C-alpha cells in the first residue's frame, strides 16, 4: 500500500485550522515556559510571534494565508478593546481623584513619546516616510494605522512599529519603572498604557486590576489625543 504522505502533510498545513493550532500551541508553550522560569524575555506576544514565524517559514506558508486562518482571533480584538471599559469603570472613582495627574502626564508624556521618537529617527537618518510611520507608534494599532496614512506614512508598517514598541515596553517597562522607583500601581499602569498601548496594558493587567485600569485609561486617552492632534501638528510643521 502506498500512502500519500506528502498530500496528507500539505492538506494539514493548508487547513484553515493550522494557523490557529500553531498560534494556540506556541502561546501555551511560551506561557508554560514563563511560569517555570519567570524569565522576562519570555514576553508572551514576542516569543509566540517568533515561534509562529519560524513554523510558517519552515512550512513555506506566507503571511496572507496565516492571517486568513487566524481571522477568528483577530476579530475578537475589537470586543476585547470594548471590554477594557469594564476595568476602567470599576476604577472610575480612583481615576476621578487623580484627574489632574492623569491629564498632566498624558499631555507631557504623550508629546515626549511622539516627539522624541521622531527627533531620534531624524538624527539617526531615517527618511520622511519612515518618520511619519513611526510618529504614532505609541498608540493602539488601528488608530496608528489611520493616523500614519493621514500624515504620509505606511499603514501596515505602522502596525509593525506599534508592535515593536509594545513588545519592548512589555519586556522592559515593568523593570524600568521599578528601577526609577515608581511604585504606585496607578503610575505604573499610566506609563505602560501611555507608551506601550495594548501590549503594555496586558503587562499592566498582569500586575493587578488597578494597574490595568490606568493602563487602559492611558491607552484610550493617548489614542484619542494622537488621532486628533498629530495630523494637526504635522500640518502645522510642514
Amino acid at each position, binding site marked *: 500500500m502506498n500512502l500519500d504522505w506528502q498530500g496528507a502533510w500539505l492538506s494539514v498545513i493548508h487547513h484553515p485550522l493550522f494557523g490557529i493550532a500553531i*498560534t494556540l500551541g506556541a502561546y501555551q508553550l511560551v506561557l508554560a515556559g514563563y511560569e517555570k522560569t519567570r524569565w522576562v524575555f519570555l514576553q508572551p*506576544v*514576542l516569543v*509566540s*510571534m517568533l515561534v*509562529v*514565524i519560524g513554523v510558517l517559514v519552515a512550512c513555506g506558508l506566507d503571511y496572507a494565508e*496565516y492571517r486568513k486562518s487566524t481571522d477568528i*482571533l483577530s476579530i*475578537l*480584538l475589537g*470586543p*476585547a*478593546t*470594548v*471590554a477594557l*471599559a*469594564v*476595568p476602567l*469603570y470599576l476604577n*472610575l472613582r480612583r481615576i476621578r*481623584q*487623580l484627574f489632574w*495627574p492623569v491629564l498632566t*502626564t498624558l499631555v507631557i*508624556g504623550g508629546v*515626549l*513619546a511622539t516627539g*522624541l*521618537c521622531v527627533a531620534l529617527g531624524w538624527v539617526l537618518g531615517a*527618511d520622511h516616510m*519612515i518618520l511619519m510611520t*513611526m510618529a504614532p*507608534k*505609541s498608540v493602539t*494599532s488601528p488608530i496608528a494605522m*489611520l493616523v500614519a496614512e493621514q500624515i504620509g506614512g505606511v499603514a*501596515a508598517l505602522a*502596525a*509593525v512599529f506599534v*508592535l*515593536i*514598541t*509594545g513588545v519592548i*515596553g512589555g519586556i*522592559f*517597562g515593568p523593570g*524600568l*519603572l521599578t528601577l526609577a*522607583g*515608581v*511604585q*504606585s500601581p496607578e*503610575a505604573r499602569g*499610566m*506609563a*505602560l498604557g*501611555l507608551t506601550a498601548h*495594548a501590549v503594555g496594558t496586558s503587562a499592566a493587567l498582569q500586575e493587578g486590576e488597578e494597574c490595568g485600569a490606568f493602563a487602559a485609561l492611558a491607552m484610550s486617552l493617548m489614542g484619542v489625543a494622537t*488621532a486628533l492632534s498629530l495630523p494637526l501638528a504635522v500640518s502645522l510643521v510642514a
Partner: protein
Amino acid sequence: MLLRGLTWLVLFQLLGTALNHLILSILPGPIIGLVLLMIYLMVRGEVSESISLAASSLLRYLPLLLVPPAVGVMVYAGQIANDFWAIVGSLVLSLMISLTFAGWLMQKLIDRQHTEHQPNPREPS
C-alpha cells in the same frame, strides 16, 4: 452568561463601527465602542455579571489575540532591515525614556496630591 456578555460587547463594537462610518472617521470602531460601554456602565451604575464575565475572559487572552497581527512583521523584514538602526534606535530609546519619565512624573504628581489633600501622619515628607 458568557454569551450574553459577549453579545453586549459585540453590540457596542458594532455601534462604534456605525458611528465611525457616520461621523467619527478618525476614531476606530472599537475605541468608540469602549467609550459607549463606559457611558452605559456609568448610567447603569453597575457592571452586570454577564458583561463582567465576558470582559474578564476576553482580557485574560488579550496577549494571545495580539499574536496574529504581530506575525505581520515577517512581511516587512526587508524594509525594516534597510533602516534597521534608525528604526530600532529611535523606537527603543524614545520608548524607554518616555515610559520611565511618564511613570516618574505620574508618581510625583500623585505624591504631591496626597500631601496637599490628605496629609498622612504615618508617612512623613
